[in-house]
């Protein structure tokens, strides 16, 4: 018997929801064959069978959310499929569990297991009443460990379980009374965002700094190149790949921002992987442009476009959302001018591009000119770096953007 556990489908993912069982108990499964579909905050993934055998038991029902590492199914190694014919077989076979398992036969149930299972099913009237009262499912019941003689589930075991289960519900109830509002059930994504944000704000001392960037050159370039790019590449040339390119240059100049805090020391990342926040229907996904330092502006545009499209279609794979070393956020699309973003652990920084707006500014020679201005807002982990490094990074990004010209290659 081998247990299948809820896999960790990405960094900082702590739980997953069983969306669909692709196999039923009794079904034969091949190694790496799709066993179950799991939804997390970031991706929908098919979990493959870790070994060949027969799916003996499904421990977590569809629609249930469990933490990473929770046993979700049991597979019996290399046994013959026995769907719908299980009970009669063991009776006629002599019980020799150890040998049988090795020789590949269906082993008869070990007597000890049978006894303890019986002990668990012997429920007292009080326990039965509580199960009914609190609508405890068989699946839940099988997850309760009995503290009584022979593993019997006692009244106290059920009461303890109900108390534990009721904790979040009670909190909701309190809120409902005060605010008189109806709580919207939390999606796995909402829950994950919430816990990540709380973790970030509780553990990372955020510092925040803003640079004002003259984007006139970039804006002019984009206007000129846009149609040609669209014709040639089939996608829109947005500001995002250009900013990402600038960020990559900034990170190259200030590598301490492309790092992660750990108690053993600051981990400097070799690759520059830029997460680009994409808003989707019920939240936010941050797919990753891997090795962004090796891509041209056109290359960045293509990857960013592909990731955004797949994010909105719910078609991201696990590698798509893993491994970011820095994040770029683009709230400016919605007209914001100053954004204080929260860092996605374990990264050391996040840069928000705010809206590009035309403003009168004082330029060289004390003249007043109309320029396309943008604020770049950087949140950084003050444990990892200090304001000077942050300012140097912003300066690098700003200079690169302000100095933009046709000479900078798009490809």
């Amino acid at each position, binding site marked *: 018997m081998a247990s299948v556990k809820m896999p960790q489908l990405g960094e900082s993912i702590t739980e997953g929801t069983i969306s669909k069982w692709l196999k039923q108990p009794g079904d034969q499964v091949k190694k790496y064959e799709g066993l179950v579909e799991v939804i997390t905050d970031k991706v929908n993934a098919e979990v493959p069978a870790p070994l060949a055998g027969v799916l003996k038991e499904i421990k977590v029902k569809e629609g249930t959310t469990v933490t990473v590492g929770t046993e979700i199914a049991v597979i019996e190694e290399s046994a013959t499929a026995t769907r719908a014919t299980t009970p009669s077989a063991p009776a006629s076979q002599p019980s020799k569990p150890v040998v049988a398992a090795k020789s590949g036969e269906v082993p008869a149930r070990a007597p000890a297991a049978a006894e303890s299972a019986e002990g668990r099913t012997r429920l*007292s*009237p009080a*326990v*039965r*009443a509580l199960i009914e009262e609190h609508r405890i499912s068989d699946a839940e019941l099988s997850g309760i460990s009995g503290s009584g*003689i022979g593993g019997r589930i006692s*009244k106290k075991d059920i009461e303890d379980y109900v108390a534990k289960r009721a904790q979040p519900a009670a909190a909701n109830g309190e809120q409902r009374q005060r605010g008189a509002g109806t709580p919207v059930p939390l999606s796995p994504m909402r829950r994950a965002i919430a816990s990540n944000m709380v973790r970030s704000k509780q553990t990372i001392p955020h510092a925040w700094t803003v640079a004002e960037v003259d984007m006139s050159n970039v804006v002019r370039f984009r206007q000129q190149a846009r149609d040609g790019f669209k014709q040639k590449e089939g996608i829109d040339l947005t500001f995002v790949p250009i900013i990402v390119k600038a960020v990559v240059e900034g990170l190259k100049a200030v590598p301490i921002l492309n790092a992660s805090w750990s108690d053993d020391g600051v981990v400097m990342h070799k690759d520059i992987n830029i997460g680009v926040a994409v808003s989707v229907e019920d939240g936010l996904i941050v797919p990753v442009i891997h090795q962004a330092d090796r891509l041209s502006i056109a290359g960045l545009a293509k990857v960013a476009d592909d990731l955004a499209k797949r994010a909105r279609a719910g078609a991201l794979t696990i590698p798509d959302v893993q491994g970011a070393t820095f994040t770029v956020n683009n709230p400016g699309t919605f007209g914001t001018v100053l954004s204080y973003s929260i860092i996605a652990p374990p990264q050391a920084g996040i840069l928000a591009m705010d809206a590009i707006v035309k403003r009168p500014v004082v330029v060289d020679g004390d003249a007043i000119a109309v320029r396309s201005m943008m604020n770049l807002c950087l949140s950084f982990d003050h444990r990892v770096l200090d304001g000077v490094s942050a300012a140097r990074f912003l300066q690098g990004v700003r200079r690169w953007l302000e100095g933009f010209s046709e000479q900078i290659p798009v490809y």
Partner: protein
Amino acid sequence: MPQKTVIEAIREGMDEEMARDPSVFLIGEDVGQRGGVFLASDGLYKKYGEYRVIDSPLAESCIVGVAIGAAINGMRPIAEIQFADFIAPAMNQIIEEAARFCYRTAGDFNLPMVIRAPWGGGVHGALYHSQSIEATFAHIPGLKVVAPGTPADAKGLLKAAVRDPDPVLFLEHKRTYRLVKGEVPDGDGVVPIGKADVKREGKDLSLIAYGLMLTYCLEVAEKLAADGISAEVLDLRTIKPIDQAAIVATAKKTGKVLVVHEDTRFAGIAAEVMAIIMEHAFDALDAPLMRLTGPDVPAMPFNHVLEEAFMPNVDRILAKAKELAAY
């Protein structure tokens, strides 16, 4: 509130009732000049005189018979049986006459009388001075049977018994007389007949007892608490009419019940309590009902070791309670 022993509380109770109501009088062997074999009526002869504190012949049938006659004629007698073990000669008077008199006369006559009887073992009294008689008499319709375990309950229930319109068998556990001390409220402090009392709140299991076993069960509950087991202790106080509501309530609360008495097992009070729970609280049970009682042997032995073996004690109750808690 002052601390008193059970015997002091009973003496006070009789004294106050006799002072309150001139129809109350005491009759029994050596209750007068000697003040009773346990000194329950010490000083009352002097205070109320020979017509209200009457030394009877050594004849229990006479003591109860006289009390019945007096009660029919409007008096409120307290008849003392020196040891509960000696009550057998008065069985005819108690069962055939006292218990049935109200019924027989279609309610024309009540018998407001109290029969006090020191009962129970643990005092090296052997066969004739250790018996438990509650199950025998509780079986008889028409009798009330009371068995307090604390000074306050002893005094309060004695007052209630004296004022009750019907015959009450008032059982005083002789081991508790001077062993158990407790606060006794000043003033009347009547404790109603038929009401059990939760002497200790708990949630994991219930210990149901009365008399001396109450004291033991409270000690057991204390020891269980040290092990993280929360035991509720229900003191029946009145054996008949039994407090069904309180028994059912504690059974429903904890789902695990151990009934303890030193009376012999077969058809004992524990059997009745367990039957009540099965009838009214089955759905709340989390374990088989358990009982710890004296063995079904003819009488309490004199030999110290054998007496110990007969009587439930703290260690045995504790072991049984742990077995129940672990179930």
